[in-house]
């Protein structure tokens, strides 16, 4: 008997099958919410129904054992219903208030971090790093673990001036979408690709490789049936390597991490905005990247001390000015901070208004 082939294009399961009854009944009719305590949301429906959601931090890279374990908990307190958040936390959906405290007690006992709500630091959105990708300039999971260990109190507490969204991407492809985060940790290469002329033509489409370069640093090299890189114009983005394995760019000595700050996504108060360069380079120093951990903590601490209540990192910086951001954090300002790509000009200061 021929093995049955899976049916294609059935699409994901209908989410409606997975909604707890209280959600079905109050769907679209929620009235308001409160944050009962860190990690515990209470949503109240027009009907008066109360749903408690308990948010638990996850390492994201999890084993099926972990999944089964949280399923057991959800069975016990949530009638088997749970969800994940857009930042990869778990949310236990508790419709019976009586289950709330026992659930929290069990989570505490088993060491699951509860938090990430309100003015806290939520989970770090991140990527594959050395776990699975071929272009990383740094690892992902390791740095995330180290930073979350260090700032743990801000996940489980809600004492920050505002929400703090940290993200990490292990290369400029930015799968962690770090480009709009309060604090972004970004893997960066710093040396040009090394061309394997022998294999290039075999493995890659030369016109595509050339087109991949943002600064037009790559030219055809017809003699070698390969390409040339004008190293002066290369800024090590690695896009040619993404396109072509014969443009190896990983560099154990010079790869590392940049820190960008002040981005946000929500339309609340101020428009969404990009993260901007704070620290151009920190070394890869496994297993705990102490320089990165320290740099992130420093920024967070200065922000906590200096920001007004309600100010996201970028909103705070815009108020005090980048001059003061660099002064107060003690981070040196260098020529590397000044944009020199396509949209540089609008970032140049065209006024005598600035702070000393």
């Amino acid at each position: 008997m021929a093995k049955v082939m899976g049916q294609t294009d059935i699409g994901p399961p209908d989410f409606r099958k997975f909604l707890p009854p209280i959600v079905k009944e109050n769907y679209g009719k929620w009235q308001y919410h409160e944050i009962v305590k860190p990690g515990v949301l209470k949503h109240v429906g027009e009907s008066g129904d109360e749903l408690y959601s308990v948010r638990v931090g996850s390492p994201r890279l999890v084993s099926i054992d972990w999944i089964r374990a949280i399923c057991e908990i959800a069975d016990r307190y949530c009638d088997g219903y749970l969800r994940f958040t857009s930042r990869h936390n778990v949310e236990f959906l508790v419709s019976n208030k009586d289950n709330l405290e026992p659930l929290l007690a069990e989570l505490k006992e088993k060491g699951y971090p509860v938090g990430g709500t309100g003015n806290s630091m939520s989970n770090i959105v991140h990527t594959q790093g050395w776990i699975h990708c071929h272009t990383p300039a740094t690892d992902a999971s390791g740095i995330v673990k180290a930073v979350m260990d260090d700032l743990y109190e801000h996940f489980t507490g809600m004492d920050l001036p505002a929400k703090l969204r940290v993200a990490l991407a292990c290369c400029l492809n930015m799968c962690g979408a770090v480009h709009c985060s309060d604090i972004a940790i970004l893997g960066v290469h710093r040396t040009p690709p090394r061309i394997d002329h022998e294999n290039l033509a075999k493995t890659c489409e030369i016109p595509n490789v050339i087109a991949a370069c943002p600064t037009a640093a790559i030219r055809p090299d017809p003699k070698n049936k390969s390409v040339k890189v004008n190293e002066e114009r290369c800024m090590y983005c690695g896009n040619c390597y993404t396109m072509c394995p014969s443009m190896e760019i990983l560099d154990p000595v010079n790869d590392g991490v940049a820190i960008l700050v002040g981005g946000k996504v929500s339309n609340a108060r101020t428009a969404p905005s990009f993260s901007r360069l704070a620290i151009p380079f920190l070394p890869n120093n496994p297993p705990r990247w102490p320089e990165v951990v320290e740099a992130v903590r420093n920024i967070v601490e200065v922000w906590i001390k200096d920001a007004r209540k309600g100010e996201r990192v970028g909103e705070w910086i815009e108020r005090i000015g980048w001059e003061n951001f660099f002064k107060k954090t003690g981070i040196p300002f260098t020529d590397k901070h000044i944009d020199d790509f396509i949209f540089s000009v609008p970032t140049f200061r065209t006024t005598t208004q600035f702070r000393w």
Partner: protein
Amino acid sequence: MSEKRKTPMMDELEKGPWPSFVTEIKKAAAKNESAADLLGLMERSYEDKVGHWKHGGIVGVRGYGGGVIGRYTNLPEEFPGVTEFHTIRVNQPSGWFYTTDALRSICDIWEKRGSGLTNLHGSTGDMILLGTQTEQLQPCFDELSSQGWDLGGSGSDLRTPSTCVGPARCEFACFDNLDLCHDITNTYQDEIHRPMWPYKFKIKIAGCPNDCVASIARSDLSIIGTWRDNLIINQEEVKNYANAGLNIRDEVTDFCPTKAITYDAEKQELNLKGEDCVRCMHCINKMPKAVKIGKERGASILIGGKATIVQSAFLSWVIVPFMKMEPPYQELKDLLDRIWEWWDEHGKMRERIGELIYRKGMGEFLRGVGLPPVPQMVYQPRANPYIFWQPEDFEENK
């Protein structure tokens, strides 16, 4: 890796309060040789400060052009268990809601067919099954499919759409974003599963301007709930917040970007200049019992969001200030079809829609897809006088 390799750096990362991915790998390693070799390979990367994976080859399942990321280590002799270590992207349900049964069905399949390691979830929103061999791909898919799961996108296709929790648990949702996400995911199964475009295309849907799914930053097409009438104020609840100690001026109205809302401390009342409200959500966020979104609801549509490669990161740009969002979402689907057609016709290989619009000009895009220009599309009109006049503009002269 037959004899047990020492992994002191990995072990170090089991310490500390935050749950450890190393512990997770070790759990999987206890049952699975590939997972064990992944641990060893990671230790090796930590020693070498470099990744040990090669470019992926093209692997997949029958009938699909995407959904699997091929991956091979460059140290197959040392770590034979990860010689092949492909990941499978499984399309999550709208809003990442699950029952424990559903999750267990995945675990059972993945225990048999893969490393036992997953990402819940991937950054685009899929459930990621992390690491298996080429020969396991088809059986794994077949079993997933039989349990009602399907693959998400990868390559130059429509990527798995995702959306926030929305009306399922949020009082701010301006439309049924969960339904819309499910609907378009099903409508565009072909576009998700068979890469046929210049490059990837991502859609993310947020129920309101808080944008809890980061759609404006992380999707080529961002659909963000909004409303067209005034927000609704319950002055009784305003008093309650005030009496409960909320400093309404300092924490709420002072942050209103247009000063549309002001606080009368004496009367303990909020005053709204409706036409100045830009629906930033702030007053609503801070006082959800007292201030509510309006009643004439729909969504804004924005285009072009993406990360930095090649031409810089873009945040999405408003192209439709307001569209009703009701099944069968025909207006939206017609627009999507026109957008994709235009992109397909003009886009170069690996050119995201935002980069194409930048290259061709927003005017040309709007004319191409038939959208009327409105000032909401820009912060400011152009400062240069470099206008491309169109033949129509000279009709009068003929």
